[in-house]
């Protein structure tokens, strides 16, 4: 199939890397072949999240033309393949991120899905990640600054004539003041590809001695199911009720009252 999806947010710290890693694993669970590319060439940390420590050859070397993409491809959890980015600042300053487009073109047919973890911002490196993809998934938190940055990223994608698939709302905790999924869809004029609850198990997955994506650390948690929901939505599979992110719905009069006053 060879779909190349860039995960873009505009704002930093929204959860692009977490989504990329967990979505990759969720797609592998659906028997898809998946390659993750850490295109955050300045502030990379996808490799840490999937358990790769100090990979000797990275995307930096591929962008510099000193190594092939095969040499920089590593095995990750659940059959995932990963091209990590390097941590070297000097290499970061030397690389030409625009080469990412031709690199992805040369390998995308080998996989069902290639997920590109884009950097924050809307600069040249983000433009390269967007341009190397066939589709873009926006991720935002339910807050005004995050939605504003996602909107700017959408405008850049439109300038590049790239297709934006939809938006994923991350860190949803239903506290007062959060922008609802419905409002975000309306503002961005995009369909929702899921909402990921703000959960302690996602945060603790970063605090383990060896960092693990939440799908491996807590596979049956609501967040893991939310990532599975996104994967099924992307692949066009029916949405299983078990993968829905919402907690139990209360019926009856109290359920009606709860629904009436809930922020979701």
């Amino acid at each position, binding site marked *: 199939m060879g779909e190349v999806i860039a995960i873009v947010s505009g704002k930093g710290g929204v959860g692009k890397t977490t989504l990329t890693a967990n979505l990759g694993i969720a797609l592998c669970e659906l028997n898809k072949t998946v390659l993750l590319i850490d295109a955050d060439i300045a502030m990379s940390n996808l490799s840490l999240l999937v358990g790769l420590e100090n990979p000797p050859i990275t995307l930096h070397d591929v962008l510099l033309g000193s190594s092939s993409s095969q040499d920089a491809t590593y095995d990750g959890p659940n059959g995932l393949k990963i091209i990590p980015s390097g941590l070297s600042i000097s290499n970061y300053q030397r690389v030409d991120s*625009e080469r990412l487009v031709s690199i992805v073109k040369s390998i995308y047919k080998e996989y069902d899905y290639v997920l590109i973890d884009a950097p924050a911002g809307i600069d040249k490196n983000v*433009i390269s990640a967007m341009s190397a993809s066939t589709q873009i998934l926006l991720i935002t938190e339910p807050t005004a600054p995050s939605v504003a940055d996602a909107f700017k990223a959408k*405008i850049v994608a439109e*300038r590049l004539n790239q297709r934006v698939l939809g938006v994923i709302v991350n860190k949803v905790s239903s506290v007062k003041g959060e922008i609802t999924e419905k409002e975000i869809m309306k503002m961005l004029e995009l369909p929702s590809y899921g909402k990921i609850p703000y959960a302690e198990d996602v945060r603790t997955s970063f605090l383990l001695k060896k960092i693990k994506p939440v799908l491996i650390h807590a596979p049956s948690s609501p967040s893991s199911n939310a990532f599975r929901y996104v994967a099924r939505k992307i692949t066009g599979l029916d949405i299983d009720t078990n993968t829905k992110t919402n907690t139990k719905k209360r019926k009856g009069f109290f359920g009606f009252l709860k629904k009436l*006053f809930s922020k979701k």
Partner: protein
Amino acid sequence: MFRGLTKLLTKVSSKILNIEDKTKTTSLDNLLEYKTINLSSKDLDDFLHKLRIKHIVNHIIVTDLDGIVIGSTEKDLKEGFKSAAMYNYINSEMKDLSIILIESKGWQIIFKNNNKVYFIKANDNLSKIEVHALVDDLENYLKFIK
């Protein structure tokens, strides 16, 4: 007590009538005013003007290889002739350049595609990928109006 009751009734009625709470999104109003630029136009000058806004560049001039202006957002047509002459001169000295950047009163980008010379005036962070996206839009338009 009345204040509490008013608040409750407002909340219930707004939920029932599906009226959204706008207070959270007012800070985004300016940004949300941006609408996708519709490039459809029968007039080339109008199209170039829209293209200039879409791709956030200062000016777009397109000529054939002899410097005859096909379309321009600049009033001064000499600019088109100058750009083609500059492209032909630099290309005769340094063959097969995909793109030429000149820093003079901002950035000037000269780019050859499909026997046309594109002269784009923009700021310095316009990437090659963005230039290609702009050229693709224009090429599609020219194909369409032929």
